[in-house]
């Protein structure tokens, strides 16, 4: 067990997520993979959690579950007190659109749109008026230091810049939580550190809950709490040193 972590009991009643007895399996070709096994987990609003573990440990599956990308199969998953298994697709779309921001390893920006349009796209889909959208775009792009690059399209930017646009896109939605799956995996170490610093600032200054998956020790330094997974089982869950 990692000696940098210590076990903790969460007594905070401001639970953002509450998982109990969660199992998840999927087919990989003909093979049935048990990705998560009997997960019990609570995540507070405003927390910065890093999910750590080797490849195939279930980090991404757990993040996908928390980001409502994968549907719950077994057990109970509550998000802000709502049981995800009882939500309709429309309700889940609404949560993804308004309350969750995503940052993916491969950025997943819309290549035909400029940086500011990429950030604005989902705000427009939220139905925000133009003026408010523009304000949020400016704030978000300035927060990630890309305001001067707002007219560039993703292919005209470096990997780090693209990831910062992705963060700005997530941030501008004013989400309750940002789910970041391996956000530094496609970046060099110094750019990765910049990105994590940015996420850390968002967490500290704006109180946005950050959920990150990574096996990079640098990333773990920014987390307040580390959840370690192994073969789909939470093997440790504690505060980071």
């Amino acid at each position, binding site marked *: 067990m990692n000696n940098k972590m210590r076990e903790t009991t969460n007594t905070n009643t401001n639970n953002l997520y509450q998982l109990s007895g969660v199992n998840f399996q999927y087919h990989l070709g003909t093979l049935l993979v048990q990705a998560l096994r009997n997960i019990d987990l609570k995540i507070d609003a405003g927390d910065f959690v890093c999910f750590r573990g080797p490849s195939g440990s279930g980090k991404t599956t757990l993040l996908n579950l928390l980001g409502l990308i*994968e549907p719950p199969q077994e057990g109970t998953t509550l998000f802000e007190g709502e049981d995800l298994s009882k939500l309709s697709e429309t309700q889940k779309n*609404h949560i993804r659109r308004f309350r969750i921001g995503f940052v993916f390893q491969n950025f*997943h920006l819309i290549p035909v749109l400029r940086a500011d349009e990429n950030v604005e796209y989902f705000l427009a*889909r939220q139905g925000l008026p133009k003026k408010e959208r523009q304000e949020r775009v400016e704030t978000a792009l300035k927060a990630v230091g890309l305001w001067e690059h707002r007219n560039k399209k993703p292919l005209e930017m470096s990997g780090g810049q693209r990831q910062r646009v992705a963060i700005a896109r997530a941030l501008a939605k004013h989400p309750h939580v940002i789910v970041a799956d391996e956000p530094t995996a496609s970046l060099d170490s110094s750019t990765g550190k910049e990105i994590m610093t940015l996420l850390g600032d968002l967490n500290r200054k704006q109180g946005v809950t950050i959920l990150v998956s990574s096996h990079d020790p640098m990333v773990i330094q920014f987390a307040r709490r580390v959840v370690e997974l192994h073969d789909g089982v939470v093997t440790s869950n504690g505060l980071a040193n």
Partner: protein
Amino acid sequence: MLTLAAIRNLMRNPRRTLAILLTVAIGTGSLFLFHGFNAGIMNQYRANSIHAFYGYGQVNTADYREKVYEKPWEHWMQNWPDLKRRLLGIPGVTQVFPRINFFGLLSNGNITVSGRGLGVDGAEEEKFFSTINVVQGKMLSNESDGILMGVGLARSLDLKVGDKVSVLSNTIRGTLNGAEFTVVGLYHTGMKDVDDGTFRVQIGQAQTLLDTERVEIASLGLDGNEDWSKVDTSIKGEFPGIEATEFAVLDKVYYQNSVDWLNAQFNVVQFIMLAIVVLGIFNTVSTAVLERKQEIGNLRANGESAKEILTLLTIEGLTLGILGALLGIIGGYIIVFLIIPNGILMPAAPGLTRQFYVKVELQTVRILLSFVLGFFCAVVASFLAGLRIAKMPIGEALRSN
């Protein structure tokens, strides 16, 4: 924003967009060009057939075509000048060509052979029957003693243009009658029996030879083929004892059977083309949509519903369908009017002896149908592929390559 993203998506990958546009354009264009070509062939073939021998149709006394008479001339049309005037009074009828068939003996002084003569109004027929293949000399025009002969018959008699030939025939009363003619031209139909045994003289000469003022049959020239049914109706109503027969019936063996045969063949080819076009468009559009799984997964992860994704992809398909189909039609017009303005040279058709140009006839209805087909295929393919991708679990879409 959704529409903006859809439109810009089309410009994101120009090669992919161009491939789809070309697939839709080629599909749409080839369908209406093929149909235009078929229509051109049929129309040109019909025009050639009409202007070769029968005109738009013929009139004769009732049942004359169906029965064999011992004395057929007794059943020929009487009072021809009056009948001709009345026929020309029918709306749509522009010309009337009286004819008499008869048998005669032709002699050059040394050799005598039998032949089947046709008395015609040379001056009038010359203007209308333009597809007769005159290989030497000219059409029979207003030469009162002129004779136009099949090449084989002329060869048998060792005749050439300008030579004299005597024609002997029985009058309708059974006495022998004769006249001397000058060869004005030789024709070649490709049918040996016709080329070796037929000739044409002025109808007045034929009537004198047969000692009759009657006319056996009369071909009709009309404003257009579409006038035939009303002309037929007029003749039925106003000319008791006279029947009219359309050229397609008269020329059934060569014209109508050829048209039916070609149409059946074209329909098969058109069906195969249609299948290729539809499958081609479906395949190209579907592939373009399905290779965007990750992108769609990202949109879904950020709250877009399956319905919104479907709308986005359908807008793209709609735009590509409209642009591609328009491109196909414009391309078709460029080919028809700039590249092959004179049409396509075709070999001699059944029953004809000369090559002919076929113009691709662009019919508005067919163009619209081709446009709708190309556009519809692109939209449906986008919709179906979009449905598949939109319904895919988000995680699976994000994980896909």
